[in-house]
């Protein structure tokens, strides 16, 4: 039986949803015996603990310290190593967020082993854990196992569903202290520049999204026009919000919004895993000049061509 320790992540004052997804996945695997969650912060809220319990955590181990208010590699590695020592898990897993992907490989190094990042499945074969990682734009699947007493892994963002009606109970809670030195705080937090979320794309039925291939701020006009004709919303990649071609609120993906429209039109978007992980569309249509672009592997329909030629024609045909 596999005792498992999950890195509990909180975002915007609630348990981050990929972490809940990991918990739900673990409850589905019969060989997982106990699910422990490590929770760090300056404050630990009761709501977080009960939410974790509902989603399958049987035990929550928390460490409270001002140094743990915001994720920083060193203090978090230190605290997590102590939790590992106390709880003796066989599997240590985190949701594949920026923080999760930073933490897990470091913990693995301290235990002298490698780790499996961005998995979308775990299976138990005999008494071995197998980690499934899609590679090459989801064209191939690599299954790996890890040597060593403790296995370390992160899930891929968006890989596991969050159970809407979780039935778990209240977990046992314990907490302990970890002390930090100046050496642990060499990297200093300055600020988090939160992207303004003024438009909610979650319920949009149609999204016309543009990527770096759009080419500029003014050129985004055709994306807006097409979205308007289709009665939908616009979307964009981080490459576009990074350069302020379009407001940050329209970023879709791991670090932007998650969307599940009926129709998603991706124009001038290469199909980076961090972007596509935020899209669960019934129908995805891609327009890209590069026939080899990854987005075509995720698309149901596509046109190889220049979006500035294709989209105006599409617009005209839809209007006419």
């Amino acid at each position, binding site marked *: 039986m596999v005792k498992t320790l999950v890195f509990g992540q909180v975002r915007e004052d609630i348990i981050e949803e990929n972490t809940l997804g990991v918990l739900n996945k673990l409850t589905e695997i019969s060989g997982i015996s106990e699910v422990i969650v490590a929770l760090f912060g300056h404050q630990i809220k009761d709501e977080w603990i009960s939410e974790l319990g509902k989603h399958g955590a049987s035990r929550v181990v928390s460490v409270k310290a001002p140094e743990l208010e915001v994720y920083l590699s060193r203090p978090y590695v230190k605290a997590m190593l102590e939790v590992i020592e106390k709880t003796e898990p066989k599997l240590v897993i985190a949701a594949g967020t920026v923080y999760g992907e930073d933490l897990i490989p470091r913990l693995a190094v301290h235990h002298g082993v490698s780790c499996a990042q961005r998995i979308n499945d775990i299976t138990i074969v005999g008494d071995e854990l197998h980690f499934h990682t899609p590679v090459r734009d989801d064209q191939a699947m690599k299954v790996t196992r890890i040597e060593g007493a403790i296995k370390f892994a992160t899930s891929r963002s968006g890989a596991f569903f969050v159970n809407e009606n979780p039935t778990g109970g209240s977990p046992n809670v314990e907490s302990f202290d970890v002390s930090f030195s100046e050496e642990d705080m060499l990297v200093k937090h300055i600020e*988090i520049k939160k992207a303004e979320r003024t438009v909610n794309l979650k319920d949009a039925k149609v999204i016309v999204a543009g990527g770096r291939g759009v080419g500029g701020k003014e050129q985004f006009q055709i994306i807006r026009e097409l979205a308007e004709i289709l009665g939908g919303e616009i979307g964009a990649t981080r490459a576009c919000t990074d350069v302020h071609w379009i407001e940050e609120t329209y970023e879709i993906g791991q670090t932007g919004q998650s969307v599940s429209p009926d129709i998603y039109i991706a124009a001038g978007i290469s199909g980076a895993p961090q972007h596509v992980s935020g899209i669960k569309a019934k129908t995805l249509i891609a327009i890209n000049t590069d026939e080899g672009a990854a987005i075509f592997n995720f698309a149901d329909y596509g046109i190889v061509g220049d979006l500035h030629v294709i989209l105006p024609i599409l617009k005209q045909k839809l209007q006419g």
Partner: protein
Amino acid sequence: MKIIVFIEQIVSTQVKLKGVDYFDSSRVSEDDLVINPSSKNALEGALKLKDQLGAEVTAVCVRGLKPNKALREAIAMGCTDAIEIADETIYTDDPLLLAKIYVETLGQIGEFDLVFLGVEEQSTGSYAIGAMLSEKLGLPSVLYAEEIEVIDSGYKVGHVLEGGRKIVAMPSKGVISCSDSQYFTPRYTSMRGILTAKRAEIPKWTAADLGLSSSVVGKEAASLIEVSFSNIVLEKESYIIKEGEPEEKVENLLAKLKEDEIKLGA
């Protein structure tokens, strides 16, 4: 000031090899090999600091079928020099082994201030090397950087974060992995750079030169072990229109959507 950039050479994603074939080296030619775009972001990060602070930038390539080609391009972009690590016994699919090799390489190089890497690894897909390397070195690090500003105490670095961007301050010695933000948009090679690259002598180090035996960096030392590697079979084929005039392509798409009873509007 000295900056080391670890780069990776990959098979261009333009090469039309599907699934596992993409990783089969017998199917690719030298022309198909390029610097991983993500490694180019790392080169740009180092070269920006070189422009600003006058650093020496050394590119190192361990992974690739013809590392020498990638390293010449790195010099053509503006790197001061380059080192090729080539040894058939080295197993590069395990990020921990790779991090070990990087640590030994840095030990052999001697003094350095910053280490730059790209965030994406096409070959291992592990996304773990930056974190593992900094942990093994015991150096501070910022992963998924999007911008760097020089400050008195070191660097102010913005990095990717769910829901926005996080800004941290790090000391002047450490590890940075670079995303493909505008700040790290790679520069082109210059004519002068290409000439310098042609003439450059690129030393070639083996595992033995780094004091590493195959029992330490070979496949038998790996802790991440491949159980299987196979193509994912898709339930349905995608309908991608490649041929025809633009107008025909759009008509073709609309006709197919109609046939499949898919309504475009909300």
